[in-house]
């Protein structure tokens, strides 16, 4: 066999192998996506998804919260949730309440509601108390 022909054959084998690999991987992933329980399994997802996506339907919760806020633009937010992770809630607050001045966000688990509380939105996972700052 001539070297050129051997090289051409080798190239064809490599290309065919890559095509087969791509088709197998894509097919396998389609099966995973069809099986709802196996969708979140890539590297970054297994490491960070549970930590970052800790509240289901958080967009709905904040949408309701925003409706409860009415015209108030400067607020202090108390989240009744345990465990409370300040950084996570601060980021979510800024993301879902754009244009609002959230002066402070804290937790009040176990404490009686603040007398300054003007509106409360309750959920299974988290409950918000909104304190308007004048």
């Amino acid at each position, binding site marked *: 066999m001539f070297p050129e022909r051997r090289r051409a054959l080798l190239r064809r084998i490599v290309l065919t192998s890559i095509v087969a690999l791509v088709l197998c991987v894509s097919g396998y992933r389609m099966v995973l996506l069809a099986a709802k329980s196996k969708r979140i399994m890539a590297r970054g997802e297994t490491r960070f998804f549970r930590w970052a996506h800790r509240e289901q339907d958080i*967009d709905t919760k904040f949408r309701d919260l925003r409706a409860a806020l009415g015209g108030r633009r400067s607020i202090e937010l108390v989240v009744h949730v345990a465990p409370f992770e300040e950084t996570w809630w601060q980021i979510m607050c800024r993301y879902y309440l754009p244009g609002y001045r959230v002066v402070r966000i804290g937790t009040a688990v176990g404490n009686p509601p603040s007398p300054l509380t003007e509106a409360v939105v309750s959920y299974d996972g988290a409950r918000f108390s909104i304190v308007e700052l004048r």
Partner: protein
Amino acid sequence: MIVAGIIATVLAGWAAIGMRRDLTPVAWMPAWFVVGAALMSGVAIVLTPFGVSLPVASAVAALLALCAASLRLRGTTRSSDDSGAARAHLIDLLPLTAVAPFVWKSAIVPLWSWDHFAIWGVKARWFAATGSLATAFLDDPGFGRSNPGYPNGYPGLLAVLSFGEEIVARDVKIVHILFGLALVVMVRESIRAMTGNVTIAAVAAALVATSPLFWDTESLGLAEVPLMATTLTAIVLSVAPGQGRFNCVVAGALLGWTAWIKTEGFALSACLLLALVLGGAIRSSDRIRFSASWVAVALAAIGVGRTLPAGTSFFSGDYLARAGARMPEFHAILAPIVAELLRVEWLGMWIVSFVIVVRRASLSRRAGTALAAAVAVQLTLYVAVYLFTYLDPAKHIDASFFRIAAAMLPLAIVAAGALLDGNRAPEAGASGSDGAN
């Protein structure tokens, strides 16, 4: 509104580059979208200092796109001669199959990536809510964790496309999917334009579509996919044979636009500028125009970046002393990086790309070799950041290198693909087409 914004974006792109016969027709729409995204954002950014609100700026950009598109429509003459025009092939079904899981997964998985909420998405939503691309809100110390000094090209684009209306998860996903599709198409186009080999181009595009950047939804809502789609589109417009004066300026400006998308876009585009010019991909008569348009757009990004709050930099504190102290343990920084690139998630793509580059890089294949060198320099810069960082290097590498490597892989594959086949010099294939068909 996002659909109207996308239509205006595509029209703006079409008005700018037209139906170039040196590109495969399937690449027209993705190229228009990427070019149009830069143009729409650029118009809105230019209008912002004049106090123009975001909805008005978006509308003005959309109207300009419509006017330019109608002018191009009038100037378009239908050619019956299709000889020499780039065409799609049967093998192109392979990247189409490979990208299907990406589209499906992006559509069904919730928006969850931390950096979307903390950095990119929050800024986009604030731009939309405040009705302006003004960045004064970033002075609030509450945005300290949002990297206020990062470029705002991508959040600004989301706000412009939404015409100032609230940006929801669906909008972010649509834009992400469009940039992802554009990236896959541009990988194919760039290799085809550099080598003329459609099979290698399609297989490379399919490999990219199966890579972690597309399968791992950690990238959903982040700037990596828009960055690489823009970078690859700029490369395609640079290396496609029918460059012409105006297309060269567009290509250089688009490459410079990457500095508006991510901080590393500046270094990456500078490396690529050198690679494209020194690699012979740009005609000698067009090199100054190409470079000048890059300089104008990229330096503008640096200038605007200086007006943003500094935020926390990896170079905070005495970074030289830190680097000096870490040098004796440099292997401890390099080892996890190399180990990462060998992991099974990459399906051997980094190994194959490395072997191809080592075996095939030569002066006779200047374009591919120069691109590979650009990738190597950029990866070296990342390693340098891990040397200088104020964070614990091991934790920093563990938290970020996977995502960074995922973003760099398409470029590495393009470089390897360009080296697998002969080098097509731009002068040889130049048809002189400057846009219209």
